């Protein structure tokens, strides 16, 4: 076995793979797991026993036996109420937090509107910590939090989670991860990721893109974000900044973008542009409801709204066409407010695609709307939070379950 993985490494890998399977695909019998993982039944038996002992899974009769004859076999289920992660989503207009059980079940959630204006880190962190306290307090005494993840609308450095630049929310070089971790006081690090990258991950793992290894997720909030799944993995680039599709220039010399450039997809398709084209006064109510109101008005025949959608849809089409030519994706997923914008301007988007892409590249591309709705980024943050326990289940659980050191919610 010189140079090969050790027995211990193989076991860790198998434990992680099995837990991941249960976490993402739901309860399964040992036979199904054996088949899916290509391992023999006795190995599966041992792995399940280890995970059960650690309190990560439990075996029981399937709830939904139908009424078939014969003895149903046991299924391995995630201990969803016992093992959970905290997920945060910082949006320009909304702060959200959820306690998400292993298996991806939202056990509890909190959200609040965020007024637009200057970004105040203390205020945002304070609000998230407040959510977290309430979420953790409601959790059972013997349950365990295995990770914390946060989605943020900005470029995030992979190595340390530093938020480098969030033009839509007005942030530069924000040390969100350590500050949030310290204030939470759970004894856990906080993993921070770009919101659209996490949306891509969530749609790939739990949404419309399950089983699709090459997927591009486009997220509309105030601006346009993007995340790329290439060969089944999130594309990070050298430092984690990859996927800033919103700053791809589609209209050289076009509208000014918050990033300092001109004619970015963000500037041509983003919320302020749509609202301006629709003839809304600059001080009118903004936000996702305003975007949806424009799409709604267009649907009812409002000419200005329709014209506005056609204009932004055309630029969106330029962007999508470039992406199709470069990445040959199987699927493009429109999430956040882009779901509504796409459904309201699909004719423009598809027309650009038909004209500006190579036939071979577009032949099989599917244009889809996000399955997880506005929660794709929040779910992605949860997946980020679960990453560690899925990589090494026993080590993480042993560390967190040490008696006396079990993290309790910090007092209010």
């Amino acid at each position: 076995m010189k140079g090969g993985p050790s027995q211990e490494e193989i076991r860790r890998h198998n434990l992680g793979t099995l837990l991941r399977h249960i976490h993402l695909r739901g309860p399964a019998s040992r036979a199904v797991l054996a088949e899916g993982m290509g391992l023999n039944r006795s190995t599966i038996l041992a792995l399940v026993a280890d995970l059960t002992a650690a309190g990560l899974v439990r075996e029981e009769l399937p709830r939904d036996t139908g009424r078939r004859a014969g003895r149903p076999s046991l299924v391995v289920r995630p201990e969803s109420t016992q093992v959970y992660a905290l997920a945060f989503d910082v949006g320009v207009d909304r702060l959200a937090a959820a306690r998400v059980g292993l298996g991806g079940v939202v056990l509890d959630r909190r959200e609040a509107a965020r007024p637009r204006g200057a970004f105040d880190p203390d205020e945002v962190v304070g609000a998230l910590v407040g959510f977290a306290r309430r979420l953790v307090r409601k959790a059972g005494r013997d349950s365990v939090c295995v990770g914390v993840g946060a989605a943020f609308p900005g470029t995030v450095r992979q190595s340390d989670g530093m938020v480098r630049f969030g033009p839509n929310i007005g942030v530069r070089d924000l040390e969100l991860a350590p500050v949030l971790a310290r204030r939470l006081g759970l004894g856990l690090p906080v993993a921070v990721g770009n919101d659209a990258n996490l949306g891509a991950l969530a749609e790939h793992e739990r949404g419309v893109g399950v089983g699709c290894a090459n997927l591009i997720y486009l997220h509309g909030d105030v601006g346009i974000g993007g995340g790329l799944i290439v060969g089944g993995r999130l594309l990070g680039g050298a430092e984690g900044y990859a996927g800033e599709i919103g700053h791809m220039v589609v209209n050289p010399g076009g509208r000014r973008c918050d990033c300092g450039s001109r004619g970015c997809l963000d500037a041509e398709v983003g919320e302020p542009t749509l609202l301006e084209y629709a003839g809304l006064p600059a001080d009118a109510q903004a936000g996702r409801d305003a975007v949806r109101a424009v799409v709604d008005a267009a649907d009812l025949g409002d000419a200005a709204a329709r014209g506005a959608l056609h204009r932004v849809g055309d630029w969106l089409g330029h962007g999508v066409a470039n992406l199709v030519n470069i990445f040959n994706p199987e699927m493009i997923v429109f999430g956040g407010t882009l779901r509504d914008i796409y459904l309201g301007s699909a004719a423009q988007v598809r027309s650009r695609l038909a004209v500006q892409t190579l036939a071979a590249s577009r032949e099989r591309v599917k244009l889809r709307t996000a399955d997880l709705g506005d929660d794709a980024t929040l779910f992605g943050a949860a997946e980020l939070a679960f990453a560690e326990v899925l990589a090494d289940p026993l080590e993480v659980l042993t560390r967190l379950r040490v008696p006396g050191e079990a993290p309790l919610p910090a007092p209010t």
Partner: protein
Amino acid sequence: MNLTGRARPVADPAGRLVARSGLPTGASPRWEPPVTPLLDVRGVDKSFGPVQVLHEAALSVHPGEVTALVGDNGAGKSTLIKCLGGILPMDAGDVLFEGRPVRVSGPRDAAELGIEIVHQDFALCDNLSVAENMFLGRERRRGLVLDEADMERRAAQALAALSIRTVGSVRRPVGSLAGGQRQSVAIARAMLWGSRVVVLDEPTASLGLAHAQQVLEAARKLADRGLAVVLISHNMNDVFSVADRITALFLGRTVAQVRASEVTHTQVVELITSGRVTPTL
């Protein structure tokens, strides 16, 4: 782009109508593996008294795909789907199911093939619950009593599979639902019965935006689950947001059957209004 002039559809050797080179195909003619459509209707003639409404109309639908059927008011879309649903007898025409010739001489024949049509004025019983409506006429029986729990569970599963979340409880009477919710129930019902072809005749007409979007997404999900879906719509955004293929009828004739990715909005509008495409690109 090899645009050589107007697109007159021509019959390929198999008798299917295909769009010729007038439509932009991007590069040189693309080789596509010969796929057998799940349902293939050809040469459909239909007259009402002295008025011939369909002239050798054709429609091919494929599993896993949404085929949009477009055409002006009175082009014959509803008539064509009523013919393939066995509601109207066709004067002439062939129906192939998985490549085999079949006879559809009544709604029962269509149902047996797994063809489910959701008409615009689809019938649901207002006084029955969502679950009961979804099982209407096909109640699951356990012994001799209706197994309500089982019915409700399966109804809820079907709605969930299509991400239809707004209906609420499956015990709600259908009479209390809004238009889009009713449409969603009708679509989910189609899924429950192991249908293979689901035809939606103008499902989003008269719906508000949120409900229309949900119905479109449900149609998309049906196709993604492997069903063949036919969507009749006048709304180009509906068509382009979910369709894989577009079939255009003009004055009762099929003037194009193309992939949605090969045509532009303008071209489809031209097909609808004039039955042909001029090279505009």
